[in-house]
């Protein structure tokens, strides 16, 4: 069954609701575990169909290694976020069943985005993910900030999705097909010069919708507000999930539909990448709220990832194909950023504090969390021996191979700037005195998840070969591009 991961996620999304319906207070304790079971089964199903390369539903849905890579990523992210949200949601909401059900559906939307091979499917799956994300962002109904975040996120998303839909309609108009591969064939065979004009404008419009999901500048304004107001596990999800599958669609469209126009979209993406990382890093310098800081940091991270697509070159046998850089970066970023957010959740669960000033003296109050903050921030800044370094190594390497020296240099300078604000948090945690020196109690589940993410961040750096292989397999289905 090629769509078994999706079916499992859909069934479990509804199963959680049923358990919530018929269960009593005791059985509702199982809800997160039912959800986790669904993710684990979907993960196993993805591994079971590993290696398939098929196009189903009249070419609308592509089950290939590229999509399976993102399905693995989605189910891993889903599992970890559910596990850390158990303690967070306790006392904050009574409607846990709804939360876990909507969350399962948002992971389902991610897997569908990864497989979308038609303009229609792309639009529908992006909307699916958007709506579930809006609901999750505004889930704490009594919390005004959560409501405000959801409204801003929704309004911004509605506009960018309208712009994207216009771009998609233009693509369909000039090519006469919704299928990404057929559009590429239509572009290759056309002699009409006006098609070229549309083929430059339409993807730029589509980029508005994808840039919104990935939080590229200038479509990033929603991110800090939505990240700040959303329940923190949802913030963690927003910073990795939609970003990853947004990249999946961006890569798929760029590499299957628009390779013949590569010379024209590369400068555009290069400029967006430079603006994104520079603005993200510079604004992050002035943040006092840790969730806003991580929001701007995740904007900057999207800029680094985009460098990989700018330096894409699938010819030859170089280890720096650009595409593998993006995939490796995304995988490393998944564990790093989730880890950083789990640290934030750990502190917030115990004290409710989300300001950097409250992290003063953290090393005495919660030494484990303080120590892990160093690992995750080292990784976000791209300093070895961490996973983030491996990711940056491959995207910058691809840019250098393709001769984008300025772009790579700006990337490196930005990484150095980012060290400043990451280590401002570390400085507060290690060198400032706490107002309230009482120790912070971290729940066992959160401790376990912190250990897992930190171990993965270090493991990827020490033994990256499996990840290299994973990235190499996943990009095998793309044709030679340059």
């Amino acid at each position, binding site marked *: 069954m090629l769509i078994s991961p999706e079916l499992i996620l859909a069934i479990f999304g*509804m199963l959680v*609701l*049923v358990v*919530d*319906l018929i269960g009593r207070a005791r059985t509702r304790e199982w809800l997160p575990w039912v959800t986790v079971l669904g993710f684990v089964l979907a993960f196993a199903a993805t591994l079971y169909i590993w290696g398939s390369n098929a196009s189903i539903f009249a070419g609308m849905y592509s089950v290939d290694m590229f999509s399976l890579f993102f399905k693995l990523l989605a189910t891993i992210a889903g599992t970890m976020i559910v596990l850390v949200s158990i303690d967070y949601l306790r006392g904050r909401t009574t409607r846990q069943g709804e939360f876990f059900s909507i969350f399962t559906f948002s992971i389902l939307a991610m897997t569908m985005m990864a497989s979308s091979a038609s303009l229609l499917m792309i639009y529908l799956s992006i909307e699916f993910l958007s709506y579930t994300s809006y609901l999750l962002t505004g889930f704490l109904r009594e919390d005004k900030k959560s409501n405000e975040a959801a409204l801003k996120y929704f309004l911004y998303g509605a506009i960018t999705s309208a712009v994207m839909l216009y771009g998609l309609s233009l693509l369909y108009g000039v090519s006469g097909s919704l299928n990404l591969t057929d559009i590429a064939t239509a572009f290759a065979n056309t002699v009409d010069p006006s098609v070229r004009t549309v083929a430059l404008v339409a993807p730029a419009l589509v980029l508005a919708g994808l840039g919104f999901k990935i939080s590229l500048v200038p479509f990033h304004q929603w991110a800090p507000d939505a990240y700040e107001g959303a329940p923190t596990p949802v913030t963690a999800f927003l910073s990795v999930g939609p970003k990853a599958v947004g990249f999946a669609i961006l890569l798929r469209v760029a590499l299957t539909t628009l390779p013949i126009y590569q010379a024209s979209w590369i400068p555009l993406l290069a400029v967006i990448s430079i603006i994104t990382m520079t603005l993200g890093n510079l604004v992050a310098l002035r943040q006092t709220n840790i969730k806003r800081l991580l929001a701007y940091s995740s904007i900057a991270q999207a800029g680094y990832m985009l460098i990989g697509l700018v330096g894409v070159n699938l010819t030859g046998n170089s280890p720096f194909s650009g595409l593998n850089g993006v995939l490796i970066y995304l995988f490393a970023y998944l564990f790093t950023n989730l880890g950083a957010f789990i640290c934030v959740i750990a502190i917030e669960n115990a004290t409710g504090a989300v300001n950097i000033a409250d992290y003063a003296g953290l090393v005495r109050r919660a030494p484990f969390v303080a120590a892990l903050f160093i690992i995750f921030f080292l990784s976000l800044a791209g300093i070895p021996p961490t996973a983030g370094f491996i990711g940056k190594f491959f995207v910058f390497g691809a840019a250098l191979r393709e001769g984008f020296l300025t772009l790579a240099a700006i990337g490196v300078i930005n990484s150095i700037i980012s060290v400043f604000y990451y280590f401002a948090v570390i400085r507060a945690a290690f060198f400032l005195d706490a107002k309230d020196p009482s120790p912070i109690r971290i729940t066992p589940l959160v401790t376990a998840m912190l250990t897992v993410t930190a171990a993965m961040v270090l493991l990827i750096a020490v033994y990256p070969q499996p990840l290299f292989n994973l990235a190499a397999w996943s990009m095998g289905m793309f044709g030679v591009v340059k």
Partner: protein
Amino acid sequence: MLDRYGIVAIFALLAVIFPAIPLLLSLVIRPKKPNQSKKATYECGLEFEDFPEEAQNVWVQFRVQYYLFALIFVVFDIEVVYLYPWAVAYNTLGPFALVEMIVFLGILILALAYAWRNGLLEWT
């Protein structure tokens, strides 16, 4: 070629005439009693001055629960949109479509059951 555009022209002409007729007709047969509130920019034709005191106060509270009924209506709306074409083509579709439709209805019923169980159909 030209006669095809002629059809379009006739359609366009009809499209203009058709809504114009009732407007003109009502202009002819309606009673003419203009007053100040009818000439207001946002008017609903009601003269609040003639109303009793308590009805003039339009700052009444609406039950916010109304939106829930609208949402639950969507369940039935989607149901009928898909059930109707399925029922019409039932003879040609066969048992597979029947199973699919049962699954589809099951999902919709779950939504309704969830709303019901959570007390959204109670008028409290």
